[in-house]
């Protein structure tokens, strides 16, 4: 069996809020690994730190403890906790994708361009990238009349489809998904599930949080259950 593409070992995250002089635990001692062509689902109650794990891997959060070992396409191994900012940017550009619940995109840009952008960044011509974007958007049945306008005024479900198409288009080696089907109607959610299955077949490794247990049951090859972190005093004792 191939070695895992991602190994999370003892990941922990707590926030130090200076204003209130408080430490807020978010994740504690999380370990698991993710393999190519497999989907690993994170489950657990609200407050168990599921999103915190995804953000720690992507460096949107600075992890407080642990190692996150990522193996690149070239076989190099990086600890994402310690990798330099430019190494992280490079990996985000070429290997690691993140679909969040919110769409952060440039305002005033046509939906088709928003979706095509990651491919253009990899050197694909604008026309080809836009064609691929159009295919994905129609697969998720986003009405064609919306393609030329900015997603800024879209509904939650429309926006989520744009976000997903943008995350899927470049087929990153590792894709992080934070509740990708939460605000979709059942028919569109079904289309997205089909696309995720295709990505899996193409060898994409995925780490996902799903809103519905049913989706987890259908798509996950591996389920990792997280428990809410203990009180901060316990965590600090552990770290000491």
């Amino acid at each position: 069996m191939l070695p895992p593409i991602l190994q999370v070992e003892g990941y922990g995250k707590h926030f130090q809020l200076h204003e209130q002089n408080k430490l807020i635990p978010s994740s504690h001692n999380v370990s698991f690994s993710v393999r190519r062509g497999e989907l690993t689902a994170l489950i657990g109650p609200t407050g168990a730190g599921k999103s915190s794990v995804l953000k720690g891997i992507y460096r949107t959060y600075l992890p407080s403890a642990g190692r996150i070992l990522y193996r690149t396409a070239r076989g190099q191994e990086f600890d994402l906790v310690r990798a330099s900012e430019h190494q992280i940017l490079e990996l985000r550009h070429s290997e690691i994708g993140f679909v969040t619940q919110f769409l952060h995109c440039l305002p005033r840009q046509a939906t088709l361009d928003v979706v095509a952008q990651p491919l253009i960044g990899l050197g694909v011509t604008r026309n080809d990238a836009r064609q691929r974007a159009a295919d994905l958007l129609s697969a998720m049945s986003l009405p064609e009349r919306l393609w030329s306008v900015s997603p800024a005024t879209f509904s939650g479900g429309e926006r989520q489809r744009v976000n997903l198409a943008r995350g899927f288009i470049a087929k990153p080696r590792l894709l992080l998904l934070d509740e990708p089907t939460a605000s979709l109607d059942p028919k569109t959610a079904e289309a997205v599930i089909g696309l995720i299955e295709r990505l899996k077949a193409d060898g994409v490794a995925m780490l996902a949080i799903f809103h519905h247990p049913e989706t987890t049951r259908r798509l996950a090859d591996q389920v990792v259950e997280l428990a809410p972190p203990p009180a901060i005093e316990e965590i600090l004792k552990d770290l000491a």
Partner: protein
Amino acid sequence: MNKILEVRNLSKIYGPGCPLCIESTGPDADTNLCPHCGSVVAIHDVSFDLFEGEILGVMGESGSGKSTVVKNLYFDQAPSSGEAIFFDSDKQHDLFSLNAAQQRWLRNHRFGMVYQNPNLGLNFNISAGGNIAERLLMSDLMDYGAIRERAKSLLARTEVLLSRVDDLPKHFSGGMQQRVQIAKALATQPPLLFLDEVTTGLDLSVQARILDLILEIQQELKTAMVVVTHDLGVIRLLTGRAIVMKYGRVIESGLTDQILEDPQHAYTQRLVASAL
């Protein structure tokens, strides 16, 4: 990715300076004014790297020293101490050991600057086209016809009406003045551009179009930029990495999404919380 700029321990003190200046100023002292000698420690010990095609944000409030950083790098002022290396294809320039002529050459050929105040970046007594021609002349383009054509295409690119190419910039709106400044800065296709609060004070809709223009240019030309702003929206929209300054010191640096979602320093936490 290759490094284009390396800044190390940059400091600028206005005034005589004294041995107690450094320890008596900064975020912990809550001032940049030395109580012993009255000097202003505008920046102290500022270090960062910039890579080709990257946009770095320098954020902080008024008096944090963020503009002083770019003014030193663009040779508007000389730093009190520190070093900056500019990597230009296969050459390296140690910026602060160059003589005045060498510095002027880099300014005219390889750097561009857009100031908050168009008065600083434009000559208000000559036409918009003339402003651009001036920069092209300084960079050794001498043919009148070629200069005029290049000026026109730059103004068209930055969406300045060509019918106004011969008008004086003082008769332009604020947004249009910034467009002319951007066209002028880009005239020599510099690999490194400094932008100092370029959208501050403009109407929101004008701000938005200027930011769009900057992003389009960055994507087309892969220009590396240092963007100085107090506006977190501009930081979020334009930059991939950012440094946060307070009273002349860098208190935090990181990926932009990390600084906005997981700020480490008490000051950055307050700044981000007050903007949301």
